[in-house]
């Protein structure tokens, strides 16, 4: 395949960025999107030019590191996958591909296509945990969880924290991410005692960090590589209202 790539290049957080155009030849359709970028970088290095910086690690859709905005969609044209799982067979010979970083104020660009998502860690630090110390936990089977709730909880817990939901949202809202964590716990008997505190603090931190509001367009759900459901947002809203009134 022959491709034209328009890629966002930005030296660091303080510099201005711009699109740079590259062309690539003989790319196999079985090659993954990131392997295509590897090939580009290999060619740039050969020409003694600086390669394109992008985030990635596991390359199997689970660590949540890769984060490319491809032709106007987080993680590109295929549904329910991360950038690293995207393959070139989803593109056509001669295509022009536009590659940008996540665009959201709480995720500043670090370099080229790499952004800083520490904001997500900060939200979790506000209450995305059950307060138990190591040791002294009760025998595991003393806590029974219905299969249905365990499955629903797992659906929510499957979030990989990549930030595609924020990148997809016109308001840069983090509601899907936060609600997935809140739901993961809300569906389990463990940690009930601190549930109200949890949701209040996490939501407050989300607002403080500059994430926008949810105006119910649900681009987040549509672009989520792990199919996290918008029903989590409704559940979080319920939890939040309950926490506020009591």
């Amino acid at each position: 395949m022959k491709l034209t790539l328009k890629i966002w290049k930005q030296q660091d957080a303080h510099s201005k960025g711009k699109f740079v155009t590259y062309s690539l030849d003989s790319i196999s359709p079985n090659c993954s999107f990131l392997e295509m970028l590897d090939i580009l970088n290999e060619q740039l290095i050969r020409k003694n030019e600086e390669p394109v910086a992008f985030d990635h690690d596991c390359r199997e859709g689970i660590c949540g590191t890769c984060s490319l905005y491809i032709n106007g969609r987080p993680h590109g044209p295929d549904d329910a996958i991360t950038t690293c799982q995207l393959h070139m067979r989803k593109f056509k010979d001669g295509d022009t591909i536009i590659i940008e970083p996540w665009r959201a104020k709480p995720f500043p660009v670090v370099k080229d296509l790499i952004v800083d998502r520490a904001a997500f860690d900060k939200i979790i630090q506000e209450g995305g945990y059950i307060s138990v110390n190591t040791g002294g936990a009760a025998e595991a089977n003393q806590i029974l969880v219905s299969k249905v709730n365990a499955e629903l909880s797992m659906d929510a817990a499957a979030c990989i924290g990549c930030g595609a939901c924020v990148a997809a949202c016109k308001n840069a809202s983090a509601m899907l991410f936060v609600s997935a964590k809140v739901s993961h716990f809300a569906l389990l008997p463990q940690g009930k005692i601190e549930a109200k505190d949890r949701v209040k603090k996490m939501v407050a931190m989300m607002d403080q960090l500059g994430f926008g509001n949810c105006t119910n367009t649900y681009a987040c759900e549509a672009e989520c590589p792990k199919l996290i459901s918008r029903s989590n947002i409704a559940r979080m809203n319920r939890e939040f209202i309950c926490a506020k009134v009591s």
Partner: protein
Amino acid sequence: MADLNAKIPSGPLTGKWTQYKNHQNLVNPANKRKLDVIIVGTGLAGASAAASLGEMGFNVKIFCYQDSPRRAHSIAAQGGINAAKNYPNDGDNIYRLFYDTIKGGDYRSRESNVYRLAEVSNNIIDQCVAQGVPFAREYGGSLENRSFGGAQVSRTFFARGQTGQQLLLGAYSALSRQLKMGTVKLFNRHEMLELVIVDGKARGIIARDLVTGKLERHFGHAVVIATGGYGNVFYLSTNAMGSNVSACWQVFKKGAWFANPCFTQIHPTCIPVHGDYQSKLTLMSESLRNDGRIWVPKNKEDAEKHRKGLIKAKDIREEDRDYYLERRYPAYGNLVPRDVASRAAKERCDAGYGVGSTGLAVFLDFEESIKRLGRHVIEERYGNLFQMYEKIVDENPYENPMMIYPAVHYTMGGIWVDYELMTTIPGLYALGEANYSDHGANRLGASALMQGLADGYFVLPYTIQNYLSGEIRIPRMSTDKNEFVEAENTVRERINKLMSVKGTKSVDHFHKELGKIMWEFVGMGRNEAGLKKAIELIRALRTEFWKDVRITGGIEELNPELEKASRVADFLEMGELLALDALNRNESCGGHFREEYQTNEGECLRNDQDFMYVAAWEFLKEGEFKLNKEPLKYEEIEVKQRIYK
């Protein structure tokens, strides 16, 4: 000087850990606040250790190279975690888990450590459930188990195909709580590049801030390495792209000994290699072998037709299929341990029965299970794995059998540690996959997660106190001290040296070349001539690297090429040690298969007489290593040939 005293407590095996805890020294709460601990790595081992030490009141600094601690490679573990709960009432207990682990490791691990691992395994499950890890459940609400390779009981706990993710998120949540409380401080996008030793004790590290490129000095009363395994020395592996040996290699060069580097695990069920540009191999979890059956065609003609794309698997009749694992190992069938399954696949492919366009693949078939259980059950059990397979290979595994081939996956070898998980450098500890401890020559499935969390939650928090209790009089040191300055200078010189090569070939080029040498000569089948050749080739490649590598960009900025170069430089040294260890070990055991040493049926031929020891290598200078031996004594277990027939 360092010696190999493993500090194993006296007394009967079953009482050693209690005995240890009864007599070890503790640190009182007021003193804990005055003690700093550095932990490198935020995987299961590092995150669980940091959270636990933070809760206890120590001052912890934790480091990872990713942007968030939640992205450590443990996140990728799929299948499950073992524990001796015996919930299914199938005869499991601590002794049996201990026994299976020793046998699975082909009698090359230390009894006392493995027994302790089995002993604390149940606490891990309790702890994780309390944290809200959403393990799979039975209809009655209790925890569900599945079986894994190398065991005849079902003792594996799981959270769909994302067990590592859920366990890591549990440890990350505990860590996040401590970060909020301020007992732990996080240094993300930081890479440890050197260990600082003061008066013979580990006292700190030099780390590079990967965003600014600046070098930083960090002090700790003790230093803990939890940086994962070195599988990427093979370039293509199931590890994350950034997984590296660098932290381990730096401490090795500073005096920590490296144990059994040749014990590497090749996982039987991975998606086969398909092209030159390939950057990594994807694992298809071992759990699939619960319901999938492995086969190749019985007739070479069918295999050849499949390779040419003339027929599909479905066109091969039932009676023309060779379920070779069921045939060769009726007792364990498709659930034989990994090393056995991998070699059997290689044997069939080498003999001309391999399928797929390269001929380096075998089938993993779910047809029968789908018929027996229904598609929805298979979907519920393995949905995400099937989806992953389809995205990569572009073929529907519900309709056509998967094609799989072995790939490098895990490293049993690692930094030598004693019973307390301390290395040969006082005050330096190694946890998780980074250490050599519990898995001998072959790790059983679902036991790495168990070991990482055992080390971090339940072992180190005790044993490190035994050391730190002796350090309470040592005040925090200034990082202006000579030792810190010198260590930083060493790192700076090294980076400058790398940048000044200004050659013509990319870092990836060298990494791929190294990978090819390792896979061909130090992979699934090894022999004396090949290993000698590998050592020569690696040395030559290393020389070429230092003459001809090209690193674009600058030093004081985010520079992925520089990060890779520094890791590959270490792999180029480490690969040689791996081959040397394999050459020294004139026997076959577990994942280490020396072609010269096999039975008539092609099984491993161990040599207990001469090799029942841990090979602990000491660094002398580049390319020169000294072998030390820790003899292994089996008091509880009768050493046998490992038979899964």
